[in-house]
C-alpha cells in the first residue's frame, strides 16, 4: 500500500496543531481514505478530546511501544467514520517514555494498515518533537501570522532539513481577514516571503473551531464553517489534488456583501442560529 506518514508540528504551542491534525484526519477519512491519527504529545493528551473520543481510551501509545498491548487494541475507532482511528497519547507518562527507534517502528507498523498516518507533534524542539518527525515522509508546519509563531516555524524548518527530511509545507492558521485588510496582521504573502516554503492550507480564524472542540466534533463536519471548508481543501491538496488557494479574501466581495445585506448570506444565518 502506498501510505504516507505526515507529522503536524509547529515549534510554538497553541497555534493549532491538534485542531489541524483532527480536522485533516477527519477530512481525509471523509474523502475515503483509511486514516490513523496519532497523539504523540505524551503527558499532555488532547487529540482524543478534540475528536470526542476521550471516554473510549483503554490503551495508549506508550502501552503499544512497551508491548503492554497490541497495536489494534490501542487504536480507537472514530464515532462516525469507520475508516478513522486514533492512537492516543499516554497521560501519566512523560515525553521520554519512548525513543526515536520505537517511534519509527510504530510508524512502519501503521503504514501497513493505513493510507495516511497523521502524527500530532508536541510543541517544542526536544525529544518529543524528534520522535514525532523520525518516521515521517512529510512534515506540515502549522503557523499563525504573528512573530513568535513564524519565528519558531523557521527554526522548525531548519531542524527538519537537518534531520534529512524533505522541505516541510505550511498550514497558515487563524488568519483574520479584517486585521489583514487594515494592515494590522501579516498576510499570506508576507509569511511566505519570510519562510519561503510551500502552502498546503490557509485557515481563517473561526469561532466554530472552539464550538467544535467543545462538542468533540471537528469543524470539517460543519458546512457553514469557513475554517472547516479550508481544512477540507487542505486535505485535498495533501492528496495531490489542485485546489485554488483562495480561502482568504481580504474582505468579502461586493456581491457577497449585497447578498448578506439582503439576507442571503452566511452572516445572517449565523445570527438566526444564535438567537
Amino acid at each position: 500500500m502506498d501510505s504516507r506518514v505526515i507529522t503536524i508540528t509547529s515549534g510554538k504551542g497553541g497555534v493549532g496543531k491538534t485542531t489541524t491534525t483532527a480536522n485533516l484526519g477527519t477530512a481525509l477519512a471523509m474523502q475515503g481514505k483509511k486514516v490513523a491519527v496519532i497523539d504523540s504529545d505524551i503527558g499532555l493528551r488532547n487529540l482524543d478530546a478534540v475528536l470526542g473520543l476521550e471516554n473510549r481510551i483503554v490503551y495508549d501509545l506508550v502501552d503499544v511501544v512497551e508491548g503492554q498491548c497490541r497495536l489494534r487494541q490501542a487504536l480507537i475507532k472514530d464515532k462516525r467514520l469507520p475508516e478513522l482511528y486514533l492512537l492516543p497519547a499516554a497521560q501519566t507518562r512523560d515525553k521520554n517514555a519512548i525513543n526515536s527507534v520505537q517511534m519509527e517502528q510504530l510508524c512502519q507498523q501503521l503504514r501497513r494498515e493505513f493510507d495516511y498516518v497523521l502524527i500530532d507533534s508536541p510543541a517544542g524542539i526536544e525529544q518529543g518533537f524528534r520522535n514525532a518527525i523520525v518516521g515521517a515522509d512529510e512534515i506540515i508546519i502549522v503557523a499563525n501570522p504573528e512573530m513568535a509563531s513564524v519565528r519558531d516555524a523557521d527554526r522548525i524548518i531548519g531542524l527538519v532539513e537537518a534531520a534529512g527530511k524533505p522541505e516541510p509545507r505550511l498550514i497558515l492558521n487563524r488568519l483574520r481577514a479584517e486585521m489583514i485588510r487594515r494592515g494590522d496582521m501579516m498576510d499570506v504573502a508576507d509569511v511566505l516571503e519570510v519562510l519561503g516554503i510551500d502552502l498546503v492550507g490557509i485557515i481563517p480564524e473561526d469561532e466554530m473551531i472552539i464550538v467544535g472542540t467543545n462538542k468533540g466534533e471537528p469543524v470539517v463536519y460543519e458546512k457553514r464553517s469557513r475554517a472547516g471548508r479550508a481544512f477540507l481543501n487542505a486535505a485535498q491538496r495533501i492528496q495531490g489534488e489542485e485546489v485554488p488557494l483562495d480561502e482568504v479574501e481580504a474582505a468579502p466581495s461586493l456581491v457577497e456583501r449585497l447578498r448578506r445585506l439582503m439576507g442571503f448570506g452566511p452572516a445572517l444565518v449565523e445570527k438566526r442560529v444564535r438567537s
Partner: protein
Amino acid sequence: MGVFAFMNGRKKLTPGEMAKERLKVVLVQDRIKLNPDVLDLIKADLLTAISRRLEVDEENIEISLAREARWDKLYANVPIKRQKLAFEWDPPAHTPSANLLRGEKIRVEIEDDEDE
C-alpha cells in the same frame, strides 16, 4: 517597500509590515551567529572598495542582515554624495585600448547640474 524603507524610517509601516520586517532581521540572527564586530569589518571593507569608485556618505552607511525566502541576505545601504560624483578609473585589462591607458589613472568627474 522592503528592508530599505524600514532602515531609513522613510515610510510609516503598518503593524503587519513591521512584523514582517522585524522577522526578516530576527530570523537571520537566529540562524547565523554573526558577531557585530564582523559586521563592522565588512562595512569597512565595503567602504574601502566602494570609495575607490564613488564618493559616499560614510556617516550614513548601514549594513544589515535579513532573511527572505530561505536566503540570508546582506543589505548594504550606501548613500552616494550628490554634490559630485567622482571616481578613479583603472581600465581593466581586457579594455581594447588598455595598452595606451595602462599605468595611467583617469579621473572622471560628473558635475551635478542643479539647473536641470
